[in-house]
């Protein structure tokens, strides 16, 4: 034990900070925040020039407060960011980015249908989300989160996606809605 302790002490001196792996929802929360910077909404999506960008979570919230921490105090293009939670799609009022939780899987088609024509960037980690009319799907591959983007769905929603977002993403065709 004495030897181990000495070794540990020696390592302590050499040490430099490092981060352990984040959880899926932590990285997804940061992605949602990033999307607010790389997406342009039509002007009429905001009532006021300084109206907040609303990030909605529909269904069971997987973020455990991480999303609130990520956006707290941030300003994007002069707009603050707020997080709102919705249990049902009918409750959706002002919303710019909507994360659709896995709990909404059985209701996905009516949800996509109801959001049609609204300027909402829909995001989800449900299977095949982007090819089923969602705008951005998170796909877990080799423990990394990849993006799949449905350009037609983005266009239908009147959203302009920056090339910084599109370049690393996989573009899927998929019909714009069910």
């Amino acid at each position, binding site marked *: 034990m004495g030897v181990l302790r000495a070794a540990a002490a020696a390592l302590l001196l050499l040490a430099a900070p490092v981060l*352990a792996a984040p*959880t899926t929802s932590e*990285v997804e929360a940061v992605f949602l925040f990033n999307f607010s910077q790389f997406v342009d909404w039509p002007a009429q999506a905001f009532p006021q020039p300084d109206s907040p960008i609303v990030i909605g979570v529909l269904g*069971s919230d997987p973020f*455990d407060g991480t999303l609130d921490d990520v956006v707290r105090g941030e300003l994007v293009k002069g707009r603050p960011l707020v997080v709102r939670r919705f249990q049902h799609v009918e409750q959706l009022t002002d919303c710019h980015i909507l994360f659709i939780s896995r709990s909404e899987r059985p209701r996905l088609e009516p949800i996509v249908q109801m959001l049609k024509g609204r300027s909402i960037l829909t995001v989800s980690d449900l299977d095949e989300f982007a090819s089923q009319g969602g705008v951005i799907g998170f796909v877990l591959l080799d423990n990394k989160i990849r993006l799949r983007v449905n350009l037609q769905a983005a266009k239908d929603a009147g959203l302009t996606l920056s090339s910084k977002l599109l370049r690393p993403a996989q573009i899927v065709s998929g019909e714009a809605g069910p």
Partner: protein
Amino acid sequence: MESVAWIVWLVGALAGLGVVSNAAAQEEASTAAALKQLSIEQLMDVEVTSVSKTRESLMGAAAAVATVTDEDIRRSGATTVPEALRFVPGLYVAQQTADSWSVSSRGFSGVNSQELLVLSDTRSIYTPLFSGVFWDVQDYLMEDIDRIEVIRGPGGALWGSNAVNGVININTKSAQDTQGGYVEAQTGTQERVMAAARYGGQIGDQGYYRIFGKFTDQDAEDDPPGASPDDWSLGHLGFRSDWKLSPADGLTAQGDFYDGKIGLVYPSVDIIGRPGPQGRLQTGVSGGNVLGRWQHELDATSDVQVRLYYDRTHRNDPSFLDDLDTVDLEAQHRFALAYHQEITWGLSYRSMNDRNEGKGVFNLMPPASRDNLYSSFFQDQLSLGAVRVTVGTKLEHNDFSGFEVQPSIRAAWTIDPTRTLWAAISRAVRVPTRLERDVAIDVTDPAGNPVAVLMGNRGFHAEELLAYELGYRWQVAPSVSVDLATFHNHYTGLASLEIGTPFVDPNTGQTVIPIVNRNLTDGRADGVEALVTYVPRTFWRLSLTYSYIDMSLEAHGMDLNRGQFAQGSTPRNQVGVRSYLDLPLGFQLDVQFRALSALRSLPQIVTGEGLSGYQELDVRLGWRLGRRTQLSLDGQNLLHNHHVEFGAPLQRSDIRRSVYGKVSWEF
């Protein structure tokens, strides 16, 4: 005595107790802030862990870890858990008959291999009879498995005496992730039918549940089938519900119930020269379990978890009747300390009540036994900047070998975000089983004089392993990753059957020649395991696995059961190649190829002779029609009409080429 012409074939499997993967220290508050500094490209290269409890990333873990994801399971076409494990480096999976499997890690293969711990949603799949897993009753709706984590080597589990050579954690999806309806049906040349249905719904705002049922009816492997075919059928009902009671409290309740009939090609217990069961051999199996788990977050860096389960298994084998009731309660607590330390400790109690009634030759004395297991563990993980050191020990008391201490020290050096070097030294034990303690079988004519009796030995102690491991993980490029692990295992006191001192039984006047298990075999194993993953395009993924093992066992006694032959019972070289390809219009083409070198010797065969190596190929064509419907056509073991994988000639089946079609529909 020179004609000790008997053999005991005991078909069991392996198991253990235990729970919970390593939790690692985490700079909680700064994680999100650090991630926000990354570009979209960099974010896409961040390795994530799906389990909030298991903070340790695979990249940074100081152990040989691999994960089989739900995607891997779907695309491998696996219909059972052992099949899904075929491409995990360091594991050796062999199908002996339609329903019996040998799943082993780093050697000691056999359908009753005992050096591996298997947990299903933190419930140990254990029979203290052989300390083995009966894989034939480990049934899952494969769609509902979230991931299978495999940790090779000891010390990967905080709990458990049987985690000598590895731990397999099977985790099912949270009920929240299986909402809505789902049905699947499958039929083919081997599967007469496999059908399952599941429904998931919501209870209030924060509760989710699913219920499911599954029925499998599988054809025999041997062609033509012998007098006792290995066809089998199993029905399974289950549920799981997950509740978010408050932002800090999560509750899970789940359960399973099953009933089936398992065909055997050969009696599971056979003593040459003594009459065994005749004719059609079938084991009636049934059982169930209920489990509750409560997790409470005290603050950002500390949490507690309490888990309780009850498990019942019933096995009506042609050679014995076995009933086992298990109750297991455990609690664990994780918290942070000064100087970047994270402490995890826990306590658990398990009671196993086993009743075994031999039919004919098989006999345990006493037939019923209640055995208690008290365990605890303590581990301290220190984050010394780029180096994390984990020091810990398990301490347990069991009714078989008393107190057991299993310490380990592990260190992982994150050289940079793409490279990790790790090393570990650990001691682990495999505790004796009821078979080694309580067995009482006459191996010669019971009326003869003298009579040889296979007897339990209360002086038999735990088998010991001292393991040295070294590994390296390297994200060579965003599309290429390499994971290497090496080990040197040193075993002492492995079980061997020996002749004890003869004595006269005062009741019968017979001279008894006792045959007992003693700890007279030592050995070592060295190996290398590699996993290379290459993703040339977002729609194409390739992986290569390679496993090498060199094992040598030295019997210092007579080793009557030829346990020494286990040194050759795992292929020295195993290679696996997989390709997952996404095609347009929702098609997927998945190919997996495996090549295994020969088994040089098998203790299951009287002469110890081995089996030649083999190569096999599986191909799957999947087609997704919209979000709801998936079709697939799966060909397994396509290269040969049939091949053998494991076991003695009379005890194994020829594994046939098979093709099945599957349709699944969500609503």
